Each structure stands twice: as C-alpha cells, then as structure tokens.
C-alpha cells in the first residue's frame, strides 16, 4: 500500500497558475488578459467565490467572468454573499452555474425571483453572512476567490480602505487551502497606507480600468423622516432604550432608527439619558449618527463596512471608530457580525412583513432578497454567558424556565403598520410561505427574524412586549393590538388588548410617557443632509445625489 497523496490540491493549483504563464507578469495581469486568465484558473466543478459584499463589488472581475460563455466556464458552484450586479445574473442566464449559495440579493431581488420561476437558479441555501463564511471553512471552501481591494503594492500586498467588509473572511479559507486568490484593485502603488491582506495570500492582481463599485447603502436623508417615524422613535427610546438601559446595540438602516439616532442629542438629552444608553455600537458609520457622536453620546463604533463620504469624518474621530495605523477607517464584516451576535444588548430593525407570530420577512414571490446579516444579530445567541443589565432585565420578564438562560437579548422589530401604498405590514401569513419559494429553498421558509427570537414590536400604535407573553395566543393578541387598522389589527378583541395593556405587555405611547402631539420633525438634531454636514464641521462629504447646495 502506497501512501495516499494528500497534497493534490497544491499540485493542481500550481498547474493552473502555470497555465496562466505569460498572461501575467509575476502576479500582475493586464485587464485585457483577464478573460483568458479566468478560463485557465477556473475548472468545471469548482467552488468559486466572487466577492460581492453588501457595499463593495469585485465588479470588473464579475463583468469579465460574465463575458465568458458556457463552453469556457460551466458546472460552477458559486458562493457569494451578495448578488448585486446585472453581471451576476448573467452567469445564471448563461447556464454556467451548477449551484449557488448566497446571503442576499437586494437590488437583484426581482431578477432572482424571475430566475427561480424559470428554474435557472439552482440554490443550495440562502444564508446569513457569518453562516456562509463559516461554511467557507467547512464544506464550501473556495477553489478560486475573485476579490476587490482599494490598492495593491508591487508585491501584491493589499489595502482594503474603509470597506474591508468580508475580504479577509474570503481570503483566509481560500489561501490556506491552496485556492487561488485573484484581486482587482483600483490602483497599484509603491507603498500602501497599511497592509490588510499580506501578499503571500494573493496570487493574481489586476488594476481594474475603473474603480470598484461602492454603494452608499447607509445614507438616510433626515429630510425624509416623517413625524410618524419620530413618534415611533420617541416611543422606542422611552419604552425600550430607557426602560432596559440599553448600552450596546446595532441599528438597521431604515428611517425609523435614523430618527432615533437624531433624537439622542435632543429628546434623549432632555430625558437625561446621555451616558446611560447607546454607548457601544456595532453599526456602519451612519451619517445620521454624527450629531450623537458630536454630542458625546458614543464611546465606540465597530463596523461591518464603511460608508461613502464618511472617510474624513471617521479618520478624524479615531477615539470612536476603529482605525488602522494609517489613521483611516477599518471594518470587518465577519468580526462585526460576531460582535453583533454576542456582544450587544439590542438589535433593532425594520421589515416589510410581520406575521401574527412575529416572524418577519422581506421575501415575496416576485422579489427574493434573502437575509444579509440581520438574523445574526436579530436572534438569541444561545452561546451567550455574560450578563448585562438589559439582558437580565428582559430575561426576567421572559420568566425563564429551569432549562433556559437567565437573560435575553433585545430583538426589536420597528415597523409602521402600513408600508407605502397602503400595503399592510402585518399579515396572517408571510408571502415567503409561498409553496414555490419553499420548494426552491428545499422546504425552508425564508424568515428573516423568527418570532420566538423577537422580544418587542414597536409600531406607531405602541409596543408589544412579546418576551413577556406567556402563550402563543397571548403573543398573537399582543401583535394584533399594535397592528393598527391592518386586517390583522382589525381582528383584535378590545378585551384582550385592555388586559394586555393592564399587564404592561401592550403599551400605547401615553403609557410610556410620550404625547403624540409632541412628535415632530423639529425634534430631530438635523433635518437634512446639510445639517449633518454642519454637525460634522465639514468633515462629512455626502454623495452627490444627496447634495442640493
């Protein structure tokens, strides 16, 4: 019996790179040669990771990949977190993909739904971010990773700038398993500001003819915040932040939470909450946080990505933001998600649909978006052991049994009862439960946040404390009580609502000391983008579509 050769991958990698030969000079490939190089380094059957993050995109490499044909590239198992670009959709239309495992398809949600209907979207599963990264180390380890970086030096070291995002989470499993790492960069320089990915984990580099696509996903114009959202923000601040003493948290990207951020230096200050709540954040550098940061509310912010226009601001506030030795902003999606899972008192976000059990989803038959990172934070981390005031307080309300943890993370859904166009947010059954979707997902209903994990729902009608409910029936009655005039809400029974209100499980604005007539945009610390720029002392550079001066 001969010894088994267990270094086949290494040999295979060497062979592939050898085939690249003179198409590269050292590690460096000219843009024109990229299609040829891709053909030589990717083989049928490969697990291919194409970096498409929430914000930054390896868009040049994606477009070159999409320019190939099925004869060049087929039977690919694609793994990527975000299906964002039309080029990504092309890969499916051209029939190159054998299976896809991903997290999120925001801007291409409609295209993905169409592919599903046409049976051209062979999905393994829709993941949450860390779940997918975890599988990169287990059973979905990429053979080839096509990634995006801001700069490379002559050795192939990479600088990722503000949007580190998930590059390290992709490179590490690939590089340490004899996979090929191919990076597109905006520019090649002699000296990098800092090294985020060492050259010995990078095999190939191309300077893309255009800078990588970066989306301003986290910019919310305060001018678009409504009085109703201010009302909900006031209710949340009093009924949740203040009540539980929330120290560490994650905010979603909606206008609801933007309103909360902008109320801290005004309404929050008036309530004497400064220094008592909202000190530690796991969130991208949201422009709407500038007034709170300037007013001294915020101790620290760790982020899963950057935000366009916040570069100078974050660099100048290194006490608050994590920055590299060069002084510029640093983010990391995998670590951020981990922090948001274990390290925080509260996750608060919005959703398009909430059912009577508190399950929420953004998926419908015509738009399949997936999850992203919210479920990693919007859940009860079963591995958590450290106590905080808020964790224990919610835990006590939940009346833990002998086999449950003593605390609970606050998982809050903050939604208006109706979406735009009078579409009700509250439904008896989620659109995501459609049989065609469940079939495509191997029997799994794509639920963003499970009702069992949710502790509170906040609407313009009030707060439903689901953690304190003692039965499924009670939870449903609590949800109906704050579902307003939606069909779900109209089915509430007055008697139930009164009883739940008496027990503090349902609270109306006046029950938490908020007068709806006080709710006005004028409470916001900044009422428009320009106000944010002024708060930042000119350090915030909003993207052009937000500038009207």
């Amino acid at each position, binding site marked *: 019996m001969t010894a088994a050769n267990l270094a086949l991958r290494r040999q295979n990698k060497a062979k592939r790179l050898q085939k690249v030969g003179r198409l590269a000079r050292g590690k460096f490939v000219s843009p024109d040669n990229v299609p040829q190089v891709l053909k030589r380094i990717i083989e049928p059957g490969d697990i291919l990771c194409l970096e498409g993050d929430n914000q930054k995109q390896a868009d040049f490499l994606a477009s070159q990949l999409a320019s190939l044909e099925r004869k060049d590239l087929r039977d690919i198992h694609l793994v990527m977190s975000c299906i964002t670009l039309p080029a990504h959709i092309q890969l499916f239309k051209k029939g190159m993909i054998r299976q896809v495992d991903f997290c999120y398809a925001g801007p291409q949600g409609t295209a993905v739904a169409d592919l599903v209907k046409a049976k051209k979207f062979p999905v393994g599963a829709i993941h949450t971010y860390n779940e997918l990264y975890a599988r990169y180390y287990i059973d979905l380890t990429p053979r080839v990773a096509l990634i995006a970086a801001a700069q490379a030096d002559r050795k192939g070291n990479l600088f990722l700038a503000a949007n580190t995002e998930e590059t390290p989470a992709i490179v590490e499993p690939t590089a340490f398993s004899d996979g090929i790492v191919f990076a597109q960069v905006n520019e090649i320089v002699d000296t990098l500001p800092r090294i985020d990915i060492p050259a010995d984990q990078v095999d190939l580099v191309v300077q893309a003819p255009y800078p990588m696509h970066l989306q301003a996903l986290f910019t919310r114009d305060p001018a678009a915040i409504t009085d109703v959202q201010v009302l909900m923000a006031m209710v949340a601040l009093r009924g949740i932040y203040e009540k539980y003493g929330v120290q560490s948290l994650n905010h979603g990207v909606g206008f609801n939470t933007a309103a909360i951020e902008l109320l801290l*230096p005004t309404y929050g200050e008036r309530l004497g909450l400064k220094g008592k709540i909202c000190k530690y954040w796991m969130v991208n550098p949201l422009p709407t946080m500038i007034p709170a940061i300037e007013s001294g509310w915020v101790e620290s912010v760790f982020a899963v990505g950057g935000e366009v226009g916040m570069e100078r601001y974050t660099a100048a506030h290194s006490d608050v933001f994590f920055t590299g030795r060069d002084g510029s902003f640093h983010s990391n999606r995998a670590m951020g998600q981990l922090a948001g899972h274990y390290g925080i008192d509260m996750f608060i976000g919005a959703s398009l649909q909430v059912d009577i059990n508190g399950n929420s989803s953004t998926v419908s038959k015509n738009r399949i978006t997936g999850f992203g990172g919210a479920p990693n934070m919007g859940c009860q981390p079963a591995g958590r052991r450290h106590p905080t005031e808020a964790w224990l307080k919610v835990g006590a309300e939940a009346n833990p049994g002998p086999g449950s943890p003593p605390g609970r993370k606050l998982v809050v859904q903050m939604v208006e009862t109706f979406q735009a166009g009078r579409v009700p947010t509250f439904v008896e059954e989620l659109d995501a439960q459609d049989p065609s979707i469940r079939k495509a997902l191997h029997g799994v209903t794509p639920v963003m946040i499970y009702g069992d994990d949710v502790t509170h729902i906040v609407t313009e009608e009030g707060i439903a404390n689901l953690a304190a409910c003692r039965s499924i029936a009670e939870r449903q009655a609590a949800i109906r009580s704050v579902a307003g005039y939606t069909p779900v809400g109209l089915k509430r029974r007055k008697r139930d609502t009164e009883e739940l209100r008496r027990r503090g499980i349902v609270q109306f604005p006046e029950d938490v000391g908020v007068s709806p007539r006080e709710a006005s945009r*004028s*409470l916001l610390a900044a009422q428009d983008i320009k106000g944010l720029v*002024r708060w930042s002392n000119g350090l915030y550079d909003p993207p052009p579509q937000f500038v009207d*001066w």
Partner: protein
Amino acid sequence: MTRGPLFHEQTARQRIAALVDPGSFDELLPPPERITSPYLAQLGIPVSFDDGVVIGHAKIGGRKVYLAAQVGQFVGGAVGEIHGAKLTGLFKAAARDRTPCIVIVESGGVRLHEGSAGEIAIAETMRAIFECRAKKVPTIAVICSDIGAYGGMGILSTCCDFRVMTEHGRLGISGPIVIEKWMGKKAYDSSNRALVWKTSGGKTKYLLGDADSLVLDDAGAIREAISKLLGKSSAVSLKAVKARQAELAKRLKRFGQTEDADAVWKGMGVRDIEAASLASGPEFAAMAKREK
C-alpha cells in the same frame, strides 16, 4: 440644538400662523364655505376646501396685512380658477384698503387640469398686484420651499415689489425636468440637485438681486425680513425701469454665454464656492456683502 420647525416643511396654514401675531389671522372664504374646484371633481381628483390657497388678513407687529399662502402639496400649488380668483381678490382688497399684501408662493404655475382659466387668473392677479403698486401698497412674495415659484407664479413673483427667499426657495419659469427634456441631460441634468439650486435657488437669485433678502429657513427670520419691507415700496418709474434695463443687459452680457454653473457666483465675487454652498442663507448674504 433643538430649533423651531423649518419653514419650508410647514403647511400653508402653519406658515401663516407662525408668521403673524398670535391669533390675529382671519381667513377669507374659510374651509366651511366649501368652495372647491368643480374641474378636479369632474376629473375624479380629490378637492381641497381652500383650493390650494389660504387667504385672509392678520397683523404682523400690530400692523394689518393681507396674506396668501399656497399649498404646494395640493396639485403642486397650481393655480386654478378659484385659487386664482382668491389671489386676485386679495390683492384688489389690499389695493382698496391700502394694506400691504404678502403671498407665500409655493406653486408650479398654472393648474393644467383647469386649462386656460388658471392662466387668465394669473394675468388678472398681476394686474391686481400693479393696482397695489400704483398706490405704493407694498407687495411681497415669500419663496421658501423647493416647490418654489415656477411658471406663471414665477413671473407673478417678479411683479411684486419685493421677494424674500431662503436657500431652499427656487424661482424660475421652466422647471429642470422640462428643460432637461428640451435640451437633453447633458445640458441640464435635473437629478443634479446642486446644479438645480445653483440655477434657480435662493442664493443665486439673491446674488443677482432678484431676491431682496435671503434669510434663515425659519418663521421668525422671515417675519423679520417682511417687517423691514412693510413700509417700503419699489417705484414703477422711468428712472427705475431704465436702470433695471441697463442692469439686466449687463447681466446678460456678463453671464449669457457661460455654461458654468458657478459662473454667476464667481462673477459676483464669491471666492470660496464650497464654503458659500454650505453657508446658511444669512451667512451667505453676509459673505456676498463682504465680497462686494
């Protein structure tokens, strides 16, 4: 840092209430009279009790004024038959009573749904404005929202003695979308908001002298600006029109050939365009004065 509500975000009624002496506003043809547009009703479009313009009289600093405030949210503040007749009547009343008349403009111009009726109404209101001016009764247009004063209402605003603007306000005739359609996106990208405001916004209008004051987006500041103008009027005289003719000819000669959006600002002596862009209305006005 809490401040009062932004004037440009308030409704017509809130604006009036914020500008005048508390409790002094007396509405003419108030909502209970239900004078609503038969045109919109026929077209199955929701009507409004005030047909998009609130009119009446009030006191500012103890002094009687007539006031109109257009409702920009209602069919774009556009002028229909009733809306326009209310404006005409108001200016005529102001002329008759020799009482200053203020119009808070927020309108895209003529209400298309009522066809030529609104167009004639605007022409009639212009005549009524000049009735006021013939008697040296001050007429003031306040332009403070991004809906601004466009089309016939833009022209009407220039017939008043004075224009009070904020940086949010826009004054013009053709809106950016119309011009983009006409000239192409290269010549005018209507989604480039900075360009739109450089073209028609309060700051540019103030620099050129088409707005008489540029104030904070705040009722108190606007009230103060109005108060200063209440005793004044702008003459319709040969001397005045000749001076204006020369000024407008010079403006056209200096800037008529340039596509540069910053040309007017630079030409009028604004050195630091970025700082001036970020400045508030009064800060900008102060900068402009210094540079002069």
